[in-house]
C-alpha cells in the first residue's frame, strides 16, 4: 500500500501524517508514506484545499486533518 500526504509542509499536513502513521500502526500495516509538497503535483490529484490524503493514487480526503480513527476506516476500505 502506498500513501501520500499532500500539502506544502504546513502544520496541518504534519498532523495528518502523524495521524496516518498512528492509524497504520493500529491496523497493523506498514505502508509507504510519502509527502508531496509541490503545488502543481498536489493539484494534479484534483485537490483544492490542503492537506490531502491519497491512498494508492486515489484522493480520499481533502481540506481537513482526519483523525486516526477515520483514516483507519479508509485504510480498511482500500
Amino acid at each position: 500500500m502506498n500513501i501520500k500526504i499532500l500539502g506544502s509542509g504546513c502544520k496541518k499536513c504534519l498532523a495528518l501524517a502523524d495521524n496516518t502513521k498512528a492509524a497504520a500502526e493500529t491496523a497493523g500495516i506498514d505502508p509507504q508514506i510519502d509527502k508531496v509538497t509541490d503545488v502543481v503535483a498536489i493539484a494534479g490529484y484534483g485537490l483544492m484545499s490542503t492537506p490531502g490524503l491519497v491512498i494508492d493514487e486515489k484522493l480520499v480526503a481533502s481540506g481537513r486533518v482526519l483523525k486516526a480513527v477515520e483514516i483507519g476506516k479508509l485504510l480498511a476500505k482500500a
Partner: protein
Amino acid sequence: MANRVAGSVHFFIYDVIKIFILLSVLIFSISYVQSYFPPERTRRILGQRKGVGANTLAAFLGTLTPFCSCSSIPLFIGFTSAGLPLSVTFSFLISSPLVDLASVILLASIFNWTIALSYVVVGLILAVLGGTLIGSLRLESQVEAFVFQSPVSDHDNDGKISREERLIYAREQVLDIVHRVWLFVLIGIGIGAAIHNWIPESCIASTLGQDRWRSVFVATVAGVPMYADIFGTLPIAEALVQKGVGVGTALAFIMSVTALSLPSVIMLKRVVKLPLLVIFIAIVTVGIIVIGYVFNSASQLLI
C-alpha cells in the same frame, strides 16, 4: 528628536495592538463563515451560472475564500479542469486576494466606512471586468494542457463538519494566519512609523503628493512585485495618507501589493503561458491605476 522617537514608538505600539486584536477577531469570525464555503462547493455554485452573473458571483465568493495567494494555483487548476470558463476563474482569482471581509473592516477602522465600502465596490468591479475581459479574449490555448487533464475531485467536507469542528477550524486559522503574517505586519507598521515621524512631508509630497499626476502610477508599479498581505500594507498606507498622499494613491498601493506579487506570478507561470500571464498582469495593473485616479479625484467626498 525625543518627540520624534516618542511619536514613532506611539504609532508602532498603537498600531501593533490595534491590528493584532482586529486580525485575530476578524480571522476567527470570517474563518467560521468560510468553513461553509470550501472550494468544491464554490466551484459547484459557480458551475451552475453563466455570463456576467457567474463573474459577479465569482467575485463575491472570492471575498469569502482564504487570504493567501498561495492557494491560487490549486484553485485555478481545480476550477479550470472542472470546466469553469477562464472569465469566471479569473474574476475569482482577482477578487480573492484583493477583497476580503477582514481587510474591509480593517480599512474602515483605519480610514472610514466610506473608503472601506468604496474599496470593496471597486475591487469587485475590477474582478468582474478583468475576468470578463480575459474571457472575451479566448485565451484557453494559453493555459498549460495538463491543467485541463487534471482529475476533478469532489470531496466535500461541508455536510460532515460539526459546529465544534468549525470553531476549531476558525481557531486554527487564526493561529496559522497570525503565525504566517506577523513579521510582515510588524515590518509594515515599522515602515509606517518611520514614514510617520522621520520622512519629511515635502519629500513624500514631491514624489507621491496629490498634485503629482504620476503618483498613482508610481505607487502601483512599486507595489506590483512586493509580496505582503493587506494587514502589513495598511499601516504604510495609513502613514502615507497622514503625510498628505492621496487616498487613491494609497489604495492603489494596497491593491497592487495584494493582488499581484512576484511569488504568485511565478506560481501562475507554471499553469498559464506567458501571453496570458502578461495580459492578466496588465489588466489588473491598469485597472488599479484607473481606480487610483478615480479615488484621488473624488477624494474630497471620502474623507
